[in-house]
């Protein structure tokens, strides 16, 4: 649904770094997107192809790593991965507490890019 603004933001950040590094062409972009985001990888790429026409990033491939949802127990500090489907019954596997905070799963991160 909101792939378009997301893609615009990615392109803006990438072009900024492309210019700063004086590259000729961006060939790939490495992204880390949390599993909690329901962005469709395929759509991001399609929007990107469309928006990046006639820019330094035209034709770049988006390599998207989905980072899992990880929670941390507030009482015993155990960290554990959670399947999104089970997110409504979160329990610490060590002490059974359900008082946990999310430490990852919401990221929207541009890690690096490959360029010539």
């Amino acid at each position: 649904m909101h792939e378009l603004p997301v893609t615009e933001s990615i392109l803006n950040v990438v072009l900024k770094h492309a210019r700063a590094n004086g590259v000729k062409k961006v060939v790939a972009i490495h992204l880390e997107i949390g599993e909690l985001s329901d962005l469709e990888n395929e759509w991001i790429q399609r929007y990107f192809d469309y928006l990046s026409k006639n820019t330094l990033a035209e034709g770049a491939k988006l390599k998207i790593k989905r980072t899992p949802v990880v929670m941390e127990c507030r009482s015993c500090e155990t960290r554990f991965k959670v399947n999104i489907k089970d997110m409504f019954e979160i329990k610490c596997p060590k002490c059974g507490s359900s008082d946990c905070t999310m430490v990852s799963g919401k990221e929207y991160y541009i890690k690096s890019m490959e360029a010539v």
Partner: protein
Amino acid sequence: MMDDIKLIEVKEEIFSDNKQLADGLRQRLARNKTYLLNVMASPGAGKTSLILRTIDLLKDDFSIGVIEADIDSMVDSKKVATHGVKAVQIRTGGFCHLDAAMVTKGLDAMDLGGLDLIIIENVGNLVCPAEFDTGAVKNTMILSVPEGDDKPLKYPLMFTVSQALIVNKVDYLKTEDFDMEALKNRALGLNPGLDIFEVSCKTGQGIDKWVDWLRKEVKAFVT
């Protein structure tokens, strides 16, 4: 000859621009002692109804403004203005959410000076608004009973970025198959710190508890 491919570290949040703008906005509002509340929900969940109810109970305590982003054009901001507060309509141009830049425009169209509380009615949508920091102090989401108790499973992010959850249209509880306990467990599982209020904007049930929460929030912020 082929050019060598080089790896360039970027290490930036995709929404870093928006985040920066939102943080700046929060600072500006804090200096001005204006509390910004972001209200998010699906279309028809009761955002406008809740905002109007809230204004009626708080307008003697605070000077209030509203930023309207509901796509139903001017209808809502007119409704709000008849309740005696300043309202600004933002044209989102079909956008699925408000971002900090759009909110800044909305604020610029208001006289911020004397306002204690500004309420944003975000675009009706449970997905996109959750991703964009508006610069608000707190986020409130509304879930209405007819939407079902399984929404935390479908829209987990919205439940994790909100500090208050308002379950609206509880007057439908008798007729709808809605398990309030299950909903609460699901929502609290995602976000243990969530404050949950059961209300009906139709009958007025429960509105006072929500308004007490907001009154405390704003008082602590502006004094």
